[in-house]
């Protein structure tokens, strides 16, 4: 008897059928991966199971009993736990306080903190999820925060655990640890639903794969019966090119020339340490590295958001070392920022406004400080068509779009400006295979038209498939340079984790196995 069974669950939002007669079973001690593009309805389905949304039709059975899940509390009582994509953790509170929230031990309203701490220690011992129970959430790394979320579900008595895009925020190292945790949970008798859009993850961790597209289940397979190409086709509904072919590099004049650049971080520590490199027209140079090795600060210095300590940045002979963001745009630097919500978009502005940002002062969009809505609208309509942004209108606000479409807006604005240099920082973060393919094509088109591209990515597969030259950044320095032909994932991973300079770190080299968003 399955621990959880969905029969023909249907959920309709105004104008969209988010779940269309979805049926699904989860057996005891099974890991089912729910695979689908962004917007395919995976999270909606699980929010229905967790009682955050109520289904319009269909049935949910827990241990064979039909249930009507009215609230999260009810779902928790039924033994269903969920780790949300955006963590449900209160940052200033401690690990223990977060875990017991809603089910505090004690009597007469007074919390028995010792009992709570003991219970938390007991659970973390039993499942091998080590954590400091008195640490504040804000002090913990993302991977550990996720561990707290899992502990919270276990504390609440979960037998079915739903993980919603659990790897989206993790480093490759943390992804591996998570997989190990998931397997040990299953050994302890739990059943897991694993929501993701990353192909190689489902191949690595799932017992069974349920593929969703446009709100409906389109297929169900076991990892042994398929491969990533087949899964991608099922998921997107057409053939997907996981690695785009490109012409050999034709290097033009030097566009970007960085010499001895040093930049400090927010905490006033040295983040970029004497970095020098060039990018020429028609070339894609990729900076590979584990997150937090100075890439963010390098990019910010480059696009005028952070003042370098020393060194120089030259763009086609113009010194832009101390240029403001505005003059750096005017001189021809475009920037796809790593965080589209924080820096890429104004979420409460509509698409037309977002598409004109940065150029809004310039002709033909404005003269003498007065904007021309007609010009802006017609530009926006054109960009929406050219860049395949799925929206009914350019008047929609940016926050109402899916992540993939939001990123297309940023890409459309930055590439549409026709820059000399495109700085693309993690341009496909959080996107599904279809959208990744699109963004990659746009970046390669820039290269083909003779522009310089600097790509900063944590995804090795992306670096390998796009770059002509690869610079490995580690602790603020460029520790190694490869041409595209020389590089492979294993060697890159080795240098990214401090290999070469220090002794060989076997664990580090391993991380290449999970380092990509789209396996090939």
């Amino acid at each position: 008897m399955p621990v959880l069974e969905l029969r023909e669950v249907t959920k309709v939002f105004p104008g969209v059928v988010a779940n269309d007669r979805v049926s699904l079973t989860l057996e005891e001690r099974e890991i089912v991966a729910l695979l689908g593009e962004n917007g395919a309805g995976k999270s909606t389905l699980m929010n229905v199971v967790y009682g955050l949304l109520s289904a319009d039709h269909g049935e949910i059975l827990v241990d064979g009993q039909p249930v009507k899940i009215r609230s999260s509390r009810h779902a928790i009582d039924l033994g269903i736990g969920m780790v949300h994509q955006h963590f449900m953790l209160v940052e200033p509170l401690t690990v223990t306080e977060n875990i017991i929230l809603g089910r505090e031990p004690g009597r007469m309203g007074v919390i028995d903190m010792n009992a709570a701490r003991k219970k938390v220690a007991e659970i973390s011992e039993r499942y091998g999820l080590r954590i400091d129970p008195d640490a504040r959430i804000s002090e913990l790394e993302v991977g550990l925060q996720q561990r707290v979320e899992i502990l919270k579900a276990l504390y609440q008595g979960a037998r079915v655990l739903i993980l919603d895009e659990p790897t989206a925020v993790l480093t490759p190292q943390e992804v591996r640890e998570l997989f190990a945790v998931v397997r040990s949970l299953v050994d302890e008798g739990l059943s897991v639903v694993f929501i993701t859009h990353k192909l190689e993850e489902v191949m690595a961790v799932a017992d069974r794969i349920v593929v969703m597209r446009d709100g409906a289940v389109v297929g169900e397979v076991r990892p042994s019966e398929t491969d990533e190409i087949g899964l991608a086709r099922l998921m997107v509904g057409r053939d997907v090119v996981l690695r785009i072919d490109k012409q050999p590099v034709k290097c033009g004049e030097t566009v970007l020339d960085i010499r001895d650049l040093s930049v400090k971080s927010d905490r006033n520590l040295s983040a970029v340490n004497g970095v020098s490199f060039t990018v020429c027209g028609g070339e894609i140079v990729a900076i590979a590295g584990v997150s937090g090795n100075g890439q963010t600060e390098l990019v910010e210095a480059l696009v005028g958001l952070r003042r370098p300590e020393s060194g120089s940045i030259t763009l086609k002979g113009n010194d832009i070392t101390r240029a403001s963001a505005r003059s750096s745009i005017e001189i021809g630097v475009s920037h796809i920022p790593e965080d589209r919500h924080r820096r890429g978009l104004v979420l409460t502005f509509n698409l037309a406004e977002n598409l004109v940002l940065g150029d809004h002062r310039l002709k033909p969009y404005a003269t003498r400080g007065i904007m021309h809505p007609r010009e802006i609208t017609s530009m926006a309509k054109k960009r929406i068509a050219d860049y395949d942004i799925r929206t009914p209108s350019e008047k929609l606000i940016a926050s109402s779009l899916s992540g993939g479409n939001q990123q297309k807006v940023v890409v459309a604005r930055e590439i549409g400006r026709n820059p000399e240099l495109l700085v693309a920082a993690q341009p496909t973060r959080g996107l599904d295979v279809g959208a990744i393919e699109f963004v990659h094509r746009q970046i390669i088109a820039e290269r083909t038209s003779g522009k310089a591209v600097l790509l900063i990515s944590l995804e090795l597969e992306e670096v390998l498939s796009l770059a002509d030259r690869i610079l490995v950044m580690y602790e603020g320095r460029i520790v190694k340079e490869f041409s595209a032909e020389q590089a492979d994932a294993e060697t890159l991973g080795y240098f990214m984790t401090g290999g070469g300079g220090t002794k060989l770190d076997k664990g580090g080299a391993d991380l290449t196995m999970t380092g990509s968003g789209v396996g090939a």
Partner: protein
Amino acid sequence: MLSDIITPDLFAAALRMATPLALAAIGGTICERSGVVNIALEGIMLIGAFFGTATVLATGSPWLGVLVAVLAGVAISAVHAVASVNLRTDQVVSGTAINLLALGLTGFLMELWYGHPGTTQPIPTLQPVFGFGAMGDGFLGEVWRWINGVFLSHTPLVYAAIFIAIGTHWAMYHTKWGLRLRALGEHPRAVDTAGVSVARGRWVAVLMSGALGGLAGANLSIEQVGVFQEGFTNGRGFIALAANIFGRWTPIGSYLASLLFGFADALQIKLQPFRDVIDLPPEFFLMVPYVVTVVVLAGVIGRAVGPAQVGVPYEKG
């Protein structure tokens, strides 16, 4: 001259003046911790003071007046709860509306019930809890004079405020209510997904702040002044909000911050007689507590960080 200023009753006055601020500030702390801004404290105090006074005028019982003041505070804060929790309106707008409503309503009822604007007839007030006289002489007599003067000369609500500060502070860090309250203002969705109602938690917090605001009003009218006067809260509700921030959104912190503002107020009164000596207008002295507030908020505390989601209506799903 200094010995004329630094006397037991300067510090006693500081405690007294701090009391309405502290009660309202703790109300503000509880409310903001739940994620609801309560800029309406000023109006809640006024409403509490008015209905408290009216009750004493009608019944002659100060304690009944205190009770009605608290209930009136709860009732008017329910309006704020409906607006900010259920209807998800802008909380500053709702709070401002309540402040204006309180001014208008109390003025209107003055006319309607008493036939004149301004000030009500005097009412019997709550008397000091203890009534110790002078004891001993010499050094020990002096020590007793200070202890008795500063700490043992007060009316009930002055002591109540101290117990409320300590009690709510303890509860905030040791009870289920406190843990959930602290989580509510930071990440309401986390509370919701843990199976606890956000709306209920916020309602309780807003009503509690209404009760404390009403109690602050009762202290002002039924303990301190002995009348109700239109608009006599004089911005204390806003100073209380400042005390809440200065106190870093904790009850004891709010109390101590209120004590600072109360001391400034007491000092200002003490300094009034000396204006002949230094030739300054009385307004200059009246300004002191407000200047202290501005200086403290702008400079001394630096950047205070409140609950992350304060002022943001919570939408389910």
